[in-house]
Every structure is written in structure tokens, then in C-alpha cells.
């Protein structure tokens, strides 16, 4: 505690009389930052598709729950997927995902021993995700202007699923499309007055994993998925 108190004391003495002088009285104008006028669903879908097209992310529209499932099965077949890991949450279960997969020849990746031979539960999941060909998740929200997927962590909503496999397939409902980050941060997901309700990890995914670290040449899939597919339920 000595360091803490010392540091705070140093800050107060560094600021002296100027302390607090810059307080912004006017709260940030969320109204201006959020898009205005309210945009139609069709407009948001179009913007989302356009943003994704320049991000190395494929968007497939599906207009029924059935079509979502068929699109997923199609995709997995086309990508020659054999094993997968998947979120298990209501937003996917409504489409019969991942229950429909085993009967169609796809297998859930097995949790084996991890690299150090530990076989406790936590190591199990990540070792399964590490060997899976594809990860399947829902997406809590989409941001139309940037082509972003918003994923909350939680039980049945592992972070590794959208991260470890080389291919990530996300299912997003068009009704959850928001225009931009301001609409997300000001709105549905975050709560400044009840921060304990925020998910432990909220990830904003915009396109696939990439790097330009060698001679500034763009390469996809350096650490995370090199391929990102979004099935958009319209």
C-alpha cells in the first residue's frame, strides 16, 4: 500500500492548484456520435456487407433458420472441415447448431491432454480448440460501418472458439446490427453504473487475423483465424 499512497500523493502534488481544472462539464454527445437519422435495417445490412468485403471476411445471407443451418453445413463441407468446436448458447441453439453437425459427418474436436500432459478440465477445452479445424460462434452484435462482430465471453461462449482454429464461422442476426462503436458502448452491452454486469471479455472482431510485420506484406492468419465467414440471418 505504501507505493499506492505514495504514487497518489505524488500525483496530487504534481497537479497542485491545476488539479481538476480541465473537467469537461458537458457529457459526450452520444446523440451526435450515434448515427442519426435512424438507419433502416436494409441500409445497415448493406453497409455491413460492404465493410466486410474489404476485410477478407465473407458474408452469406440466410433468410430462414433452416437456411442458416444449411449454409453452415455447406460452408463446412466446402472448407473440408472434419472437426469443430462450437459455442453452446441459445443464439445458436435456435438454429439447431451445433446439434445438427454430428449427424452430417462433422465431429466435435476432442479435449485431449495439453502440451504439458495435464488433463484437468480447463486445459481440456483449449486443447480441443487447438486441434479443431473450425470454430463456430454466435455474435451478440454487429457494427455495420466497420464490419465488426461483437462477442461476449461467458459459460458456453469460450474465447478460444473464435481464436484458435484456422477458420471462424459466426452466425449474426441482422436485427442485432448497430451502426457503429458509439451505439454499442453507449447502449446495450455496457453498463457504466453496473460494471459488474459487463462480460469478463468483450471482443470486437473486424476481419481476420493479419500482419504486415515482414516488409509490410499483408499476410492473413498469423495467430488467429485466417478465414472469417459470417452467416447473416436476415
Amino acid at each position, binding site marked *: 500500500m505504501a507505493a499506492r499512497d505514495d504514487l497518489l500523493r505524488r500525483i496530487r502534488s504534481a497537479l497542485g492548484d491545476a488539479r481538476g481544472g480541465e473537467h469537461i462539464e458537458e457529457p459526450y454527445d452520444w446523440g451526435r456520435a450515434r448515427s442519426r437519422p435512424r438507419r433502416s435495417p436494409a441500409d445497415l445490412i448493406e453497409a455491413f456487407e460492404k465493410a466486410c468485403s474489404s476485410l477478407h471476411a465473407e458474408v452469406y445471407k440466410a433468410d430462414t433458420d433452416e437456411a442458416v443451418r444449411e449454409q453452415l453445413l455447406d460452408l463446412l463441407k466446402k472448407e473440408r472441415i472434419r472437426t469443430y468446436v462450437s459455442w453452446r448458447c441459445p443464439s445458436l441453439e435456435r438454429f439447431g447448431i451445433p446439434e445438427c453437425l454430428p449427424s452430417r459427418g462433422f465431429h466435435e474436436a476432442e479435449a485431449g491432454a495439453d502440451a504439458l500432459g495435464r488433463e484437468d478440465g480447463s486445459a481440456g477445452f483449449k486443447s480441443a480448440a487447438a486441434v479443431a479445424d473450425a470454430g463456430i460462434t454466435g455474435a451478440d452484435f454487429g457494427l455495420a460501418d466497420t464490419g465488426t462482430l461483437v462477442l461476449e465471453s461467458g459459460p458456453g461462449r469460450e474465447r478460444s472458439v473464435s481464436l484458435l482454429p484456422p477458420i471462424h464461422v459466426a452466425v449474426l442476426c441482422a436485427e442485432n446490427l448497430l451502426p457503429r*462503436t458509439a451505439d454499442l458502448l453507449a447502449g446495450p452491452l455496457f453498463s457504466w453504473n453496473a460494471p459488474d454486469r459487463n462480460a469478463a471479455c468483450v471482443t470486437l472482431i473486424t476481419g481476420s487475423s493479419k500482419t504486415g510485420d515482414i516488409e509490410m506484406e499483408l499476410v492473413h492468419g498469423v495467430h488467429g483465424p485466417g478465414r472469417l465467414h459470417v452467416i447473416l440471418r436476415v
Partner: protein
Amino acid sequence: MDVRSDRMRVSSREALLDEDLQRALGKAGPLLQSMRNAGMASLDRPEALRERARAAKREAMARLDEMLSRLEARVQERGGQVHWARSADEANRIVLELARKHGVRSVVKGKSMTTEEIGLNDALSGSGIRVSETDLGEFIIQLAGEPPSHIAAPAIHKTRQQVSELFARLGAEPTDSIPDMTRFARRVLRERFLEADMGVTGVNFAVASTGTIVLFENEGNIRLTTTLPRIHVAVMGMEKVIPTLADLDVLLRLLGRSATGQKLPSYVSLLHGPRGGGERDGPETFHLVILDNGRTRILGDPELRETLHCIRCSACLSFCPVYLRIGGHAYGWAYSGPIGSVLTPQLLDRGKASDLPYACTLCGACAEVCPVMIDLPRLMVALRRRYQEAPDRPRPAVLERFCMGLYARVLERPALYRLASALARIGQAPFRRGDRLEHFPPPLERWTASRAVRPFSRLPFHARDAGGRAQPEEAEDGRTR
């Protein structure tokens, strides 16, 4: 890390002779500039947003004690632990102690200039802990045993051949293919991620009102670092705290665009403590280390305080004509480019970095692109002035003092000035080579040795009319400048 900022003159000269470096910088500069410009052009009102971003940082600094206390409380509410470090040593001891307590044998790291600043890698490996940098660029320079040469692209100075040779040490087949090299790094590092006990990252922003720790990246290595190991330690300079999510929105829109022109990078992680109940991945414990290491000294200096507003986007590097010639290593420490030139001498003992603020032409490009509008040229001048006023500064040479004294006298007297410039226009003839002056005779030869000195115009500025044109009787002279 070692401080080599006192060698700036020597290392700059070496950098200018390094052909690979010159080629890399020559390619990177225009590319980074056009990406940044295109990114900013996609904003409705970029100037208003920059003003708003500056206001957010100002507010955070003006109430920094309150911001940090609130951040601490929020992080603790979410089950995270907060540690305070007055110095680099103290920060390293905190991380080491955590590693010891949890039996950590290997650490994976996300790119973090703050941990470069405190030399955390050396501290950990000195205690027998294996440390792996996992950002592709950082991985490369860790293999090479070098410090980063750019805030956002640490291995910008390496050619593909050099990278291929470094990877060969780890058993890679030699190749010219950058995608192949990248796949090799993915494979090697993936194993280390799965084995690691502790993940260490920096912090891009920490939101006081919600306790949100924000991390930016394109590769996914930071997500792996914060997802797979059982312990996550985030080390933040105390100036990274911002008041609210509204401020975060503003800065989110500026950071990616300023760095690489991206509206958002591939991944933005918004973290609240360790994994929640029922979660099967994410760290079991989360630690936030809040670092001073000289920052309160800068905070207490109203003239220089805005140095702390920096969000490490690297736009000032991309646009700096000096950085784009000498590269990052010449600055001798974690921070390079214009921000390095003002931050390094303030964080370090002045004597170790006193050349840095002079490595600047005061062209102002950095201030024009800075997303939080830091007036970098003003800070350079302020630091130079302090060095000149310092009682212990080295006295300039007799000749320099004489010439500067003479120059001052001439400038004070318009008639004398006109006479002197008329004489100079005649006297310069023997030294003129096209549109520059070369090879002044001793003792003035040093002035032309490394400078492109422009000849005195036949039509001086004060002889022109207000529109900058030649006055009628001299209008036939085409050589106006």
C-alpha cells in the same frame, strides 16, 4: 533494456549508411502516410474528433489521482488485483514476485512499449523464466537480440532474407516466401501459447468508469496471451487511463486510423478481470500494474505535461522526415520518432538523451497528424531551451559563439542586414553549385559538410510586395525565392 540514446549522432550516421534500412524506410514511409490519410478521410469531422480526444486526455491528466483510484476500485470489483509501481525496478519486482508465487516457468507477451521501457524481459529471463515475444515483429527482433525500431511495426527494418536466416535458427527451411515464414512463426508460437503459465500485455486504454482494460491488435497474439495462460498481467503507464466509455469511443475511432488507416484493427479486447463463473477459458487471475517511472515528474511540469497525452499510435513516426531517414534504433530506447525525442529525455536522466530533441527540423508534420494534437515541435523547442539555459551545459566553441553573436547584431539593424545580404549575394558566387552552396572554406566548412545550403536569392524576401511577388521594377528576375 539498454539505453543507447547518448550515441544518437553515431547511430544516425550508421543508419544512413545501412542500405537495407534505407530501402525499408523508403518503402514504409509513403505507404504508412497514405494509409493514415485515407483512414482519417473516412471520418465525418476529423478535426472535431481530435479536439475531443485531446480534451479527454487533458481531463484524465487533470484528475489523474481520482481516475486511477476509480479504475482500481472497478478492477477490484471484478476480481482483479491492482499493483502500484513507482519505478521500473518496482514494476519488475511485482511481476517477478507474481511469477514466483504461481510457479510460472514460461511467459508469453503481447507487444508492449511499456514493458520494453522497464526491461521486463531481462528481469524475467534473469530469474530463469522463459519469455517469448509473440507479436510477429517482436518475435523477430527478440530472435535477433535487438530492440524494436518502430512503435507499431517493431521489425520494420528487417528484410525477408534476414528474417529467413533468423527463423533458420529455429529449424525453418530457408525461404523467400513471407506467408511461409508467417506460418512457421504461427506454429512455433502456438506451442508456446499452449504451454505458457503467464501472459503479459501492455494496455492501450483503461476506462476509469467501468474498469475496462482495452487492447488493440491485428494478429490475435494478444487475445491468445489474455486467453490461454492461467495468469494475465497487464502493465500500464499511469497516463493510459481515460474517464469514460464515451472517451473510449473517440479514441477507438482515432487510434487505428492514425496507425495504419484501419477504422478498427482486427481485434479489440475489452477486458474486465479474470474469467467469470462457468467460463472454460480466460485467465484465472488478473493483475494490473500501474506504473509511474518518471511520469509524475512530467505531470508536474505544465509546459511539458501534454507529453503524457500520447496514445502510441505511431503516426508521428510515419510522417517524420528525420525518423524516415534514421529509423528507430538511432533513438536508442523503446520510444522513437518525434514522441521518442520528447519522451525519452523526460523519462531518462537528461544527460543520456540530450541530443534527441535536436533531431528535428521543426517542420511540424508530427503535430499535424497527432490524433490527440500534441504540439511536438513546441515540446522540442522547450526542451532545447532548457538545455541551453542549464548551468551545466557545455559551452559552445569560440567560433560558434562569435558567429552567433555577429548574426544577432546584424539581425537587429536593418541597414546592416541589407548590406550584409548584398555582400553575401556577391560573395557566394564561388561556392555556388546549381541551387545550393557547397564547400565553404575553413573555418566554416563544417556548416556545409552535412547541409544543403540554399543560395541567397537575388531578390530578398523584404524586397517583395505583400503578395509575395517581386516588385514591378525587378519583376523580370525569374529567380525569386
